[in-house]
């Protein structure tokens, strides 16, 4: 048979960063570790490190904070993107304001209740760029997608949006996290296609 050529004959969607494809209504599950026994009852979120006062919120306390929603596109380093999706929770700005960020803080390590970690420049998670979310499309965030609550940093590849989020530690230096120590890019901007170390 004649070579049909690869591609679907569609114009590329301008919402897709380079090398990404639209996964449609599906939402692939990618996890490196055993899922934790974590529910709203034993979940907590802590902000510590270079802050005026370290603080920990349990589920009711976090829900008393001002709620915030985000809609847009998310991008996984494994090359799928999920377009036009929505989450709700609380802005990271709100948590940080309650703890009081010290001026010398430049980076954070986001950590999960499983032990997973990922590093982020403070500027990438402040100013309305990051959330702790517990709802997806109006429903409780599914456990396999990080429920009861995960970090959401939609401007970066989704491994930065740590599932089962446990806290943020503010630091005055960058400290590579789980994947960043294992060959993946320190920042992970999908529009610059920063997938792997050195990209």
């Amino acid at each position: 048979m004649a070579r049909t050529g690869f591609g679907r004959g569609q114009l590329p969607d301008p919402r897709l960063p380079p090398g990404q494809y639209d996964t449609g209504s599906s939402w692939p599950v990618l996890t490196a570790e055993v899922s934790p026994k974590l529910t709203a009852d034993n979940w907590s979120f802590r902000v510590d490190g270079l802050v005026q006062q370290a603080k920990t919120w349990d589920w009711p306390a976090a829900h008393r904070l001002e709620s915030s929603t985000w809609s847009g596109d998310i991008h996984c380093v494994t090359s799928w993107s999920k377009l036009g999706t929505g989450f709700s929770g609380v802005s990271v700005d709100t948590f940080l304001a309650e703890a009081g960020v010290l001026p010398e803080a430049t980076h954070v390590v986001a950590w999960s209740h499983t032990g997973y970690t990922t590093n982020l420049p403070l500027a990438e998670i402040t100013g309305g760029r990051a959330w702790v979310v517990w709802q997806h499309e109006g429903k409780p965030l599914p456990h396999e997608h990080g429920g009861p609550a995960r970090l959401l940093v939609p401007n970066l590849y989704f491994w930065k949006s740590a599932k089962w989020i446990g806290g943020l530690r503010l630091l005055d230096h960058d400290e590579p996290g789980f994947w960043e120590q294992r060959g993946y890019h320190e920042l992970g901007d999908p529009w610059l296609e920063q997938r792997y170390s050195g990209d």
Partner: protein
Amino acid sequence: MTDGLPALPTLGPVTRRVPPSGARRLWLPAVVTQVRDETARAKTFRLAIRGENVDRHLPGQHYDVRLTAPDGSTAQRSYSIASAPGDGSEVELSVERIDDGEVSPYLHEEIGVGDEVEVRGPFGGWFVWRGDTPVLLLGGGSGVAPLMAMRRYWHTQGEPVPLRLLVSVRRPEDLYYRGEYGPETTVIHTRRAPDGDGRPVGRLTAADMEPLLAAVPGATAYVCGSAGFTEHASQLLVTLGLPAADVRIERFGPG
């Protein structure tokens, strides 16, 4: 100050650091030197990678494969390496056909011996095994591919440490790498078993796992497959007493 804070949690020591240079891995041309059918829906492509200083992979790592259309648009996907580490210049990638996919149907229908694709890698620093510690490998369907790299490496090294491999498939004809397994491997069937198979069909159970765990004391478990398989198998391992820290997971395919 951050002194005096509790240590951050960790999933364990780093098993593979990136090259100290931090050098960017480049896309390299690779020529298909062999294509084999694994099942009706899966093919293995042997690739000769053109380039200097191609890194030898560790069992469990993957390559990214990129296709470029005549109009310049590209698509890329990650595929696990199924072959044991050689000198780095040739690797085998097993590709399951996803019917509504963009890349795998093209690879299956249009790519043959002598054709060229682009590859980048090897990548991955978590789901890797250096061959020197006891392991229990659990693969669901196509998830056996990176585990086969481990099993093949172990075999070429003279089987130096305890290793057990369990492969879960729906039907006998869905088994990849048929004819290559030894007594270290158990195949279970979830929908239809071959005639004479003593095990009732069905998903992985504690009874399947217990004798394997007993044969590899101190093992790290590597679990690869669909989200459903990996979730079930990894929770079963923890229930049977394996510390969660000793379980590494790679999830394949649509969620």
